[in-house]
């Protein structure tokens, strides 16, 4: 077996007396599409925040590409190849669609401040390249027509897609999607499922998906990890998870599955 792309080893985070994530271990291989599910408050988003460095682990390790990401600043982790979207869309509200994606190209620039001030030939070439890359991405996701719109005036579904485009512009190896289907109608959800699979194949990505909608999760994930109260209670294929008694207890014991 080859080395996993992402590996969590006993990752734990504690806020005050509360263990939001406890001794969590799982791994994702390159190109894999993994689902992370669990009842409300199970700690799914916290896991995202741990992986991307927004929160720091209290104990345990997280490896990406064989190197630990614990204690790294989020932008450095992104530079290593992890990109994410947010549960509550966090686009750059005052920027255009184009600029939102352009910001994510920032870290791949060869030149910085002096370049933007002097504006020599190298600068124009680089800016042209960035524009080309961004427009290609926008085209793939059908947002090229909205290039100069303010992102906040986009319809909700488009905002979700724009967040994915923006994440892809960082050229990740692993994409973390936080409830991408939230607030979508069934037709949109089907579209989204196609989109995620397409993205995974096209960009040769591993994807970690947090989602409440079981249809989406069961429909596209190759493997699923289930959390409850910050602990992993099950892991397996969609078929295994569907019949797991602990999972059923966790969901039914508290509330019904989100439809």
């Amino acid at each position, binding site marked *: 077996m080859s080395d996993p792309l992402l590996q969590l080893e006993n990752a734990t985070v504690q806020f005050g007396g509360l263990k939001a994530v406890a001794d969590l271990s799982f791994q994702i291989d390159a190109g894999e599409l993994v689902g992370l599910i669990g009842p409300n408050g199970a700690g799914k988003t916290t896991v995202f925040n741990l992986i*991307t*460095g*927004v929160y720091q682990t209290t104990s345990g390790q997280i490896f990406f590409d064989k190197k630990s990401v614990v204690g790294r*600043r*989020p*932008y450095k982790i*992104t*530079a290593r190849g992890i*990109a*994410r979207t*947010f549960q*509550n869309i*966090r*686009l*750059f*509200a*005052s*920027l255009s669609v184009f*600029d939102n994606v*352009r*910001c*994510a*190209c*920032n*870290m791949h*620039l060869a*030149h*910085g*401040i002096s*370049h*933007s*001030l*002097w*504006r020599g030939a190298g*600068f124009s070439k*680089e*800016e042209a390249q*960035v524009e080309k890359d961004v427009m290609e991405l926008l085209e793939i996701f059908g947002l090229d027509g909205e290039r100069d719109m303010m992102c*906040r005036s986009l319809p909700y579904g488009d905002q979700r897609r724009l967040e994915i485009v*923006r*994440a892809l*512009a*960082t050229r990740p190896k692993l994409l973390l999607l936080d409830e991408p289907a939230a607030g979508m109608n069934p037709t949109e959800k089907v579209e989204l499922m196609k989109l995620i699979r397409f993205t995974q194949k096209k960009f040769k990505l591993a994807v970690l998906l947090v989602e409440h909608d079981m249809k989406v999760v069961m429909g596209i994930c190759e493997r699923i990890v289930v959390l409850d109260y910050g602990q992993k209670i099950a892991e397996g294929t969609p078929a295994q998870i569907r019949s797991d008694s602990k999972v059923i207890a966790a969901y039914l014991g508290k509330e019904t599955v989100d439809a």
Partner: protein
Amino acid sequence: MDKWPKSILIAVLLGCLIGSPFVFQINPYYYDILLGIGISIILAASLNLVNGYTGQFSLGHAGFMGIGAYASSWVTLSYGYCLGANTTSTTTVFLLALLGGGLMAGIAGLMVGVPSLRLKGDYLAIVTLAFNEIIKGVIQNAEPLGAQRGLGGMVQHTNFFWTFGFAALTVYVVVHLVNSTYGRGFLAVRDDEIAAEAMGINTTKYKVLAFVLGAFFAGIAGGLYAHFKQFIHPEGFNFLRSVDIVVMVILGGMGNTAGVCFAAVLLTILPEFLRSVSHYTWLPLWLQQIAENRMILYSLLLIVLMLTRPQGLFGGLGMPRRRKDVEK
């Protein structure tokens, strides 16, 4: 403004150079106001980089201005013997003094920028205000800098060319910096720091850079101010002066350089306009008195502006909308 070539900057600089002999002819009072406008533009445009584009709220810009003013005056007063020699050495020493003032202010900007990494919004505003007061306090105690007396004896080197040359340079730097893929990072930091980090943007670097550059230009402005007024006093760089600059940025629209420059012009002329209004004896007495107390008008302007047009008179890219989740 996205595609402004360097040639425009060069054209403006040449224009200043050619224009300065003619401008020298005008009434010294208007010349005084004109230089005041140039200095205000430098201050407002540089603060706009920090407050407008990067979304950090600095209430201490006058402190940096003060550092620049004192540092550059110290240089010209210490190397005064080079000044009279000939035009070349005078210009060199003066320019070095300005740059030295700018650098000192930039270093102070670094010291303020670092706390900005841990603090946001009103906390940051208070800390920058505190820095402003500390800078003032240190100058007040520095005997070689004249302490409470103030520092005088500088020769007037600041002229139309240098003032508007540096104003053009400041605007050029701010506009070009922001209008590039690299510079969009400033706006990303303003809109959403967490998302910006997640997109691989080093928010630390951008915030510190904004503070350092903003402070650098404020320092230059301070140097120009000192060699134009020829006397500086710690009270001239207090919190109220900072508020003056903040009002320019807010009136012009945070993150709108053209608007902010226009506001700088407007708010520099306004007090002089009010000065003449206060002499119009045909006006009712209370109106004359209100005109004399320009701070009352300023504060009312600030309140009304915030209530009705928080994006400033001339629009601007606007402040980020309130996000419910961030407020918790």
